[in-house]
């Protein structure tokens, strides 16, 4: 599903590599935490999968795509197979919950009748049925992140990338979001989550890939945070 082979990434404006000789293999339907302190390269890892960045060295494969070699016009195809969530939700403040989720389908040309059918389904899945007409500012942080997850998942991507999705949430709300990500994972969707939230990693007992200064220093099938220290 996801494979990185000896990937290094050096940003033009930086001397130290953001990732150095990283090799990771993630199978279909896996749930993987990418952990490490701030600046260790977690976000870079995820951006390489999305072709937001290209590796300086090494190869990146996502499902059938050779990501680094993908011609620009085919990048949208790759991204349609990936859902994304971020710490800051990135909702459109002038659109309702329904419109925010529908937006993801509209801009890839899905027909109106499909949108009318699948958006309510996914809102129910994330536990937001009944809040379709709210504006984002009328929702709590946890609810806003649910909208973002709904938007990421509405096109039924093969994998979901989450970059510190609980970074702005209190522990209880974070737990709810984790339950939701688990539920999405159980539908067969591969989930990759970057975080430095120790308690979440510890409570989930899932595969952990730990980065430090851009290197993989640990890859545990059922890890806890901080085990390697």
């Amino acid at each position, binding site marked *: 599903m996801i494979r990185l082979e000896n990937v290094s990434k050096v940003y033009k404006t930086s001397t130290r590599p953001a990732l150095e000789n990283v090799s990771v293999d993630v199978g279909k339907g896996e749930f993987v935490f990418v952990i490490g302190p701030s600046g260790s390269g977690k976000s870079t890892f995820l951006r390489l999968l999305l072709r937001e960045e290209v590796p300086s060295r090494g190869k990146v494969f996502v499902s059938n795509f050779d990501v680094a070699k993908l011609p620009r016009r085919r990048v949208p195809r790759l991204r349609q197979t990936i859902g994304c969530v971020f710490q800051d939700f990135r909702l459109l403040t002038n659109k309702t919950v329904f419109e925010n989720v529908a937006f993801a389908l509209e801009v*890839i040309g899905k027909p109106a009748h499909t949108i009318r059918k699948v958006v309510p389904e996914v809102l129910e899945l994330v536990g937001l049925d009944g809040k379709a007409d709210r504006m984002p500012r009328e929702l709590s942080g946890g609810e806003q992140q649910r909208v973002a997850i709904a938007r990421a998942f509405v096109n039924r991507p093969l994998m979901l990338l989450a970059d510190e999705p609980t970074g702005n949430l209190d522990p209880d709300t974070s737990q709810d979001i984790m339950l939701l990500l688990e539920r999405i994972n159980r539908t067969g969707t591969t989930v990759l989550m970057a975080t430095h939230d120790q308690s979440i990693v510890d409570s989930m007992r899932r595969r952990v890939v730990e980065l430090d200064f851009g290197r993989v220093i640990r890859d545990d099938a059922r890890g806890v945070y901080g085990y390697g220290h």
Partner: protein
Amino acid sequence: MRASFVFSEVSTGLRRNVTMTVAMILTTAISLIMFGVGLMVVKAVDLTKDNYLDELEVAVFLTDEISKKDTNCTAQPCASLKQDLELNPAVDTVVFRNQTEAYEVFKKAFKNEPTMLELASPQAIPASLQVRLKSPEQSGAVVKGFSERQGVSLIHDGGETVDRLVDSLRVLRNVTFVGSLVLLLAALLLIANMIQISAYTRRTEVGIMRLVGATRWYTQLPFLLEAMVAGAIGAVLAISGLLSMQVLLPSGFANQLENVVRFPGTFYTAFVISPILLLTAMLISSLVGYVTLRLYVRH
């Protein structure tokens, strides 16, 4: 692509930055009006030239002596002057006009100006040979040498007047073209600026579009259409401005001019100039839009 989606994106985009949009539309409109006036003058040059050249005659005025004595150009030197002119291959016809006939022509030309009529008498107007040419542009060459001939007092070459008139029209045309070019450049920069601002205010949307895998068409078409819609509105304003100028002016000003310069009518404006203006506006706005998007908006 879903039309309703694109439409709503474009209309919110235009409304989001009303001042900018209005500035851009007005600049486009004014530059297009100037461009349109330039095109009208180009046409006016042609029409005026045709009009004058059709009626162009070279008048070879004869001395007082001939005017008084020789009323039908049978004596010398009038007869040989006439004959020599007729022998020139570039000359079409030569008509002798004696003082009485000349006075009639004068009365007709100034029938609305009684003071002029009072001043003139048949004796004051000389007889002339009215020369029509096969090709009016050659008037200068034909009459060359005749001004020194005996019996000739003055040669009035109508071609020179037309040349001077056409020259001043050309200056007018060049001035409007340069003016419209400068304004068009301003409009161009405003379009580019509008797109950049629009892209900035919409960066979250565009960011999400890119992440969920929208193609370049989807991310960039709204911007392009925004520029084109604004350009089209500018063109429509310019066209209605030109047409209403044309309809409203003739009551006073243009009637005076009509005797000297032939201007194209509203039909020409509506069916020749308008499409050119509209096309120019669309072409420029889409081109600038495309280039700006390439340079400033990451896909």
